[in-house]
């Protein structure tokens, strides 16, 4: 979450005069520090990357479905941190709000609704586990070799602090590309995203209505106990039936036993 802070630090580190530091702290303490200039951005990246990958593997390893959901929450939270570190702060915040705050809450609700005792932890057999591990490792190796094959990606970043992307993104979504074209990219070809934006909004509407319809309470073959009874509850009309003998204000004679006789 404090990714932005690191960006300011790193952009200033090269302007500091290291010599100034040593004469003020002649003590050996400073000299003992092995690191020339800690690049906080890298440290935070390692932290968040470690969290993301660790919890992702945690999701695979966990058997209890509630724990899987929890690890997934932490993993996607760390991914949001990675987005901040990469300078895409709007996407980071969006990930936090929509993905972790919305989708995963939906997922956890789904887990809570279906996590009856037997279904909470379904253990895959050990043979499946080894099979999955082998397949996973080979897929990973394939991806990494592909990633390493391109030299341009191998070079370290130039650490040019990008301009805030919230407003350009907003403008891009309504079709006006205001961000300066990044150096080296083809000059003209920047396209607005008005059409996909509208399509996604309609798509979301349709999908959510569909999902609500799919999970609706369907009609029942045998009505539930409470529906039948609730409708049969006798509810009196509002006006009370006028009492036959309206008692005069003062207390009249007390009640008599029906057997003794004599009117009211």
């Amino acid at each position, binding site marked *: 979450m404090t990714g932005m802070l690191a960006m300011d630090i790193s952009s200033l580190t090269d302007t500091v005069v290291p010599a100034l530091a040593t004469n003020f702290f002649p003590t050996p303490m400073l000299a003992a520090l092995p690191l020339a200039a800690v*690049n906080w951005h890298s440290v935070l990246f390692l932290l968040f990357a470690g969290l993301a990958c660790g919890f992702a*593997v945690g999701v695979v390893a966990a058997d209890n*479905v509630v724990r899987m959901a929890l690890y997934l929450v932490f993993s996607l939270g760390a991914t949001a941190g990675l987005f901040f570190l990469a*300078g895409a702060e709007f996407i980071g915040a969006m990930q936090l709000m929509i993905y972790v705050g919305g*989708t995963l809450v*939906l997922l956890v609700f789904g887990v809570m609704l279906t996590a009856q005792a037997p279904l909470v932890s379904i253990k895959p057999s050990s043979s499946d586990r080894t099979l999955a591990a082998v397949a996973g490792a080979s897929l990973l190796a394939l*991806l990494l070799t592909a990633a390493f094959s391109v030299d341009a990606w191998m070079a*370290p970043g130039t650490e040019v602090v*990008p301009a805030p992307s919230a407003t350009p993104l907003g403008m891009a979504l309504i079709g006006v590309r205001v961000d300066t074209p990044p150096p080296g990219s083809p000059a003209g070809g920047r396209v607005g995203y008005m059409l996909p934006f509208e399509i*996604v909004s309609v798509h979301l509407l349709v999908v959510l209505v569909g999902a609500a319809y799919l999970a609706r309470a369907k009609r029942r073959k045998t009505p539930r106990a409470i529906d039948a009874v609730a409708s049969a509850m006798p509810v009196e009309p509002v006006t009370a039936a006028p009492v036959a003998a309206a008692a005069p204000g003062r207390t009249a004679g007390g009640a008599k036993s029906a057997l003794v006789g004599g009117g009211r």
Partner: protein
Amino acid sequence: MMDFAVAPFMLPSGLPMPGCLATVPLFAANPFTEPVGVIHYLIVGAVLFTAGIACMTLKRNALGILMGIELVLNGANINFVAFSSSYLRAEGAPTLGLDGQVVALFVILLAAAEAAVALAITLNFYNNHATVDVDRADDLKG
């Protein structure tokens, strides 16, 4: 700026030796001081992607599969954002610019919609068969 050369490890045959993967010097000197490049994001993206695929194959719980899908989508998202970030851009390398972020945005939105439908189906399935164990979903078998 100190840049570091990458020892060529590609064999002339084009197929990299799997064994040599571990020797690739990602951080020449010290991971805490070297700036982060696109490749590091790609590694994280790959790990997440693989974890997602493994989760989808391994878990017999329908919700486990859903979580696998979320991980796969996030792996892709990381790559998009990595390529769109000018901070991680190597010298002179072109970046996706804003397009990468917009695509990541759409992926997040559509993942929400997809999760909603998937959950509706899972709840229906749970409703009719009192279980979310995917192996038991064999009603349509001939």
